[in-house]
């Protein structure tokens, strides 16, 4: 979906959110993900931006909840106002005028004797409820904070898997399903590369984690990366163009190198440019047929 739409459209929409809020009527907040690193018994203040893009004054209540990992897709499970959620100091509520974007200071104080490692908290910005009848829709955005309490913490990758999505492709490109577990005490973001080798050597190197996915302690994360043109084609001409844009043939090997994990993982796939091969086959057949016909004509003469 992402690729099928023009990124110019995305820019336009985001600029509309930022510059023409009354046209968009949305609640906005950013950054959506905030990293903080602190010693125990220290504090810091960060700022988040909250935008009221409605055409009326709106009051938003602020509240925090700790979260843990839910599943392997980077989705949080909120567990209430406990633990690190108590470290936050913010206004209880803010009222924004129509179209106003406001930077909101958020202070975090880590208590003494907190064990090193990462702690994860969502700051919710919630449209204030009212006493209307019917179903009243309330907007609520959660900004996710990743607080790393410095000290003897670690990221420990285990049970890493690396699998090509396609065993056979028609152009030099593929996608890879990656799964990594973190048995450490702090969240981590995998870094490294995927090298694609032909029989002649390395032909392509792509980053292992271009989206900067994070993996919380004692949890796993699955995600997919890709390279090359993998878009579905509508006809044989498009297919041919795609094949020629990344023309390759034969067996390939992809090697995943994850920093902090000493064992590279290999996966194999094969490139078979089907339409190109058929076309070449037809051309060769025609040439052979012409050659045979020419010889036959010469014999006849």
């Amino acid at each position, binding site marked *: 979906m992402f690729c099928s739409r023009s990124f110019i459209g995305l820019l336009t929409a985001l600029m509309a959110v930022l510059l023409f809020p009354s046209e968009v009527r949305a609640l906005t907040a*950013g950054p*959506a993900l905030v990293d903080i690193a602190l010693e125990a018994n220290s504090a810091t203040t960060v700022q988040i931006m909250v935008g009221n893009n409605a055409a009326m004054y709106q009051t938003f209540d602020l509240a925090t909840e700790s979260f843990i990992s839910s599943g392997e897709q980077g989705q949080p499970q909120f567990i209430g106002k406990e633990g690190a959620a108590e470290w936050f100091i913010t206004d209880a509520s803010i009222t924004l005028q129509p179209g106003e974007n406001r930077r909101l200071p958020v202070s975090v104080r880590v208590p003494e004797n907190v064990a090193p490692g990462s702690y994860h908290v969502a700051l919710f910005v919630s449209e204030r409820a009212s006493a209307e*009848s019917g179903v009243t829709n309330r907007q609520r955005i959660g900004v996710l904070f990743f607080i790393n309490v410095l000290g003897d913490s670690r990221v420990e990758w285990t049970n890493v898997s690396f699998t090509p999505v396609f065993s056979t492709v028609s152009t030099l490109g593929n996608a890879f399903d990656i799964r990594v577990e973190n048995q450490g005490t702090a969240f981590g973001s995998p870094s490294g590369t995927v090298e694609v080798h032909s029989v002649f050597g390395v032909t392509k190197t792509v980053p292992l984690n271009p989206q900067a996915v994070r993996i919380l302690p004692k949890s796993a994360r699955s995600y997919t990366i890709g390279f090359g043109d993998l878009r579905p084609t509508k006809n044989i001409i498009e297919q041919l163009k795609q094949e020629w844009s990344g023309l390759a043939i034969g067996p390939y090997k992809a090697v995943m190198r994850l920093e902090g994990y000493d064992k590279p993982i290999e996966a194999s796939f094969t490139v078979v440019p089907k339409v190109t091969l058929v076309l070449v086959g037809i051309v060769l057949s025609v040439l052979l047929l012409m050659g045979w016909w020419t010889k036959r004509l010469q014999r006849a003469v």
Partner: protein
Amino acid sequence: MCSLRTLFSVVMSLLLVASPAMAMTSTNFQINWDTVSAGGADFGTSANFVTHDTIGGEAAGQGSSANYRLSAGYRLPETANLLGYEVRANAASPTPTWTVFDGVDEVTVSSVAGFAIGDLIAMVENVGLTQEVAVGRITAINALVITVDDFQGDTAGISLIAAGGDDRVYRLSSATLALGNVSGATVATGIVGTNVITSVPTGYSLYVHGNHLMQSGLNTIPEVLDGSVTLGSEEFGASITGPGAVNPGTDLGVTTTMRLVQTNGAATGGIGDRLGFSYKLSVATSTASGAYSQDTYYTLVANY
């Protein structure tokens, strides 16, 4: 699967829009934003972690004129990983019928009065418990033809020539979904549309929950449990449709427990990801009369 070139272009373009100082990364650390011009700092960190230093920041703040609004200055890149969305219920009017749908982005209605370019609308076929819904934003109105940027939802299931018993186009502009009066012989339905736009590369998840069940004083209407709101049964729930919808087409209750309704593992396109909620309320003859209500929270968070 996206090509890396496209992904890179989009991410870089987003950074150019939202960040006067480009984000910097290495294998050991990342700097989401970094402004250096005069003096001062708020916090910094060591390797493996993020630095958010800001020095200077003159001319910070907001500006506006009749035609634009600008947020500029101190650490603007708070907007670099932006989450934005809107939630709108169908208004009581306009609700014209529609006759022709081109299957993509155009619908012919009986009247365009009350609609304007920029409105979020829902096209509904066969209003009722089995209705089909598509949500789009109006980009043009010509005579009786409304054009939207993109209809998302049940576009494949909606007839090109209206075939339902009651086929309507709703303007989604209300904060409250008024379901009207319901008796044991009728049901009430309504539409809520959401539209999520985000530049977060890991995408987003949208959840829904209520402050309580549909309630009037001490009386409540239970959430639907069997996947389908049925005429004559006392139950309330909603089905959803749209890209990334979780359990689309199944009537599910809105309880005090957050339920994932939509997710996407990448940044959205410029139009955004829409979701059409078909809320359905049915009562039994034994249902206590009263004005029932529920605050429904739509919680949007980034995936990490």
